[in-house]
């Protein structure tokens, strides 16, 4: 993720990019409107650590620049990856570096518009883009990536989608910005749980639950033996789900996992009895997570 990326479709971005990259003039690629700012080594390490990259992971790096993130992920952790950059020379250089390091079979780099890239195969998505680009990608990330996919971003956040973790990295050699530090943010793509669910607890209650979702928060109402109770403490972290229905001696605590179409796990009542539960949608599974 070495280059802050620009879309060919957005020529006016040039002005925008120049506005934030004043200090990066020396580093900027001489051609086009693409400011190319290499990721410092400490930031690369922080991104891979925060994402928890390991063997078996498939990274997609949007704005792959000189390819250092994928090359590091492949050589150090045994991950595979696809790097996307709009600068043909950086792509060529990255592929050459991969070959030279004997990683040509695991990582490859392509010259492509990042908005046209199919990101669905990623288990980890790495970004070093301008905030506007993160925000423009956000809905695609929420809709296309599998629940549980980790997203890490250097410096730019995702607006009101709060990161699950963040770390500040000291970068004395940083060439952009006033502060000589970088922020690395991490999110886990939440399962899309919005909508109506029919919950069945083994040997027990049937409950109808209407969930609303805002990123990793879920809330809503449950209809339980004719009574309406609120859904409290709702959390979706990747595929992992937790919520509470009812209060006091009536409380039920649900934990489980979901791919968006079904949920299953174990439910604990206020007396500590644990029972298996599962939930299915009476209707169609939504394909998008509405962001209000």
């Amino acid at each position: 993720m070495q280059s802050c990326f620009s879309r060919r479709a957005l020529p006016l971005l040039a002005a925008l990019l120049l506005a934030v990259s004043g200090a990066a003039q020396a580093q900027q690629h001489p051609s086009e409107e693409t400011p190319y700012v290499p990721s410092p080594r400490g930031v690369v390490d922080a991104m891979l650590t925060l994402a928890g990259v390991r063997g078996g992971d498939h990274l997609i790096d949007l704005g792959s620049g000189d390819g250092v993130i994928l090359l590091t992920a492949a050589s150090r952790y045994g991950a595979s990856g696809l790097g996307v950059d709009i600068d043909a020379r950086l792509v060529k250089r990255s592929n050459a570096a991969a070959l030279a390091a004997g990683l040509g079979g695991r990582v490859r780099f392509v010259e492509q518009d990042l908005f046209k890239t199919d990101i669905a195969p990623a288990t980890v998505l790495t970004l070093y883009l301008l905030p506007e680009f993160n925000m423009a990608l956000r809905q695609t990330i929420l809709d296309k990536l599998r629940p549980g996919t980790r997203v890490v971003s250097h410096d730019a956040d995702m607006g009101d989608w709060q990161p699950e973790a963040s770390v500040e990295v000291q970068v004395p050699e940083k060439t952009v910005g006033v502060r000589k530090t970088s922020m690395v943010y991490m999110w886990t793509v939440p399962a899309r749980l919005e909508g109506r669910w029919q919950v069945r607890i083994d040997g027990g209650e049937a409950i109808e639950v209407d969930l609303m979702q805002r990123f990793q928060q879920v809330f809503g109402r449950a209809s339980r033996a004719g009574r309406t109770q609120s859904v409290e403490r709702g959390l979706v972290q990747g595929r992992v789900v937790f919520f509470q229905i009812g209060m006091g001696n009536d409380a039920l605590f649900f934990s489980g996992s979901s791919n968006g179409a079904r949920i299953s796990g174990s439910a604990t009542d206020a007396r500590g009895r644990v029972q298996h539960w599962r939930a299915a949608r009476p209707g169609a599974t939504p394909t998008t997570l509405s962001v209000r």
Partner: protein
Amino acid sequence: MRVIASSLLSAVAAATVLSVSVWAVPALALEEVPYVQTPDKVVEGMLELAAARSGDYLIDLGSGDGRIVITAALKRGTRGLGIEIDPRLVEKSRAAAKQLGVSGRADFVVQDLFETDIRTADVLTMYLLPDVNLALRPRILAQMKPGARVVSHDWDMGDWKPDMSVTLAVPEKKIGLNKSSTLHLWLVPARVAGTWRTRVPLSKGVMDVEIDIEQKFQELAGRARSGDRVLPVERGFVHGELLFFRFGNGADTLLFKGRATADRMVGRVTDAEGREYPWRALRKTAAAGR
């Protein structure tokens, strides 16, 4: 119900509701003790909120004419003890329990409620005053069994927020401007502050973790340490004996739920893939304070 704690009281209007003949005890203007009977509807509401059931031992602080302990024994099969400072009310309560055939399960003693041993109670009912509730709070938190239910009529416990509250319309209520009663329920939270040791599964193997837990009533916070990694404990809370918390991010996310005793937590942990594993933790040190 009866407000005792004479030293703490100014004055509250005394009132009597004579709804059941055996409890037809006129409010005796004993010194500065205000005696306000609990309407039957409120008695039922308190027992319902406490989920009082057969096998429970109920203690009623300020038992007045004894109706809570007697009703619980009659309708819910509990055993109970009423604490009352007025000997005449204790006499009447005993007589009523005998007449209704529950004297074996509804006992009454003359006692200062601050001297009462509340450790054995599964259910504690109170119709006192706010500062009396607050004065009792440290003993409730430190001594009562985790998961025990505490129900208070009208008064809360300051910054220890109730786990549940209900408001009942009580047109016959003799005190206050609002002809309603608010009932609060607290589940005595497990005392989990301190350092715990556990071993948890991760996709890359098991991890030995030390968890420092800070507790404020039902809410938990803290840190999980493994080697040189330190992760914040998030979304932590206790619900009576039950506890819930999570730490870790992304593929290393772990969601814990279990039951806590004084030196052990036993439960299940859910990993990022949704797999559940049995899990337990052992106490290393207790916290200095609560």
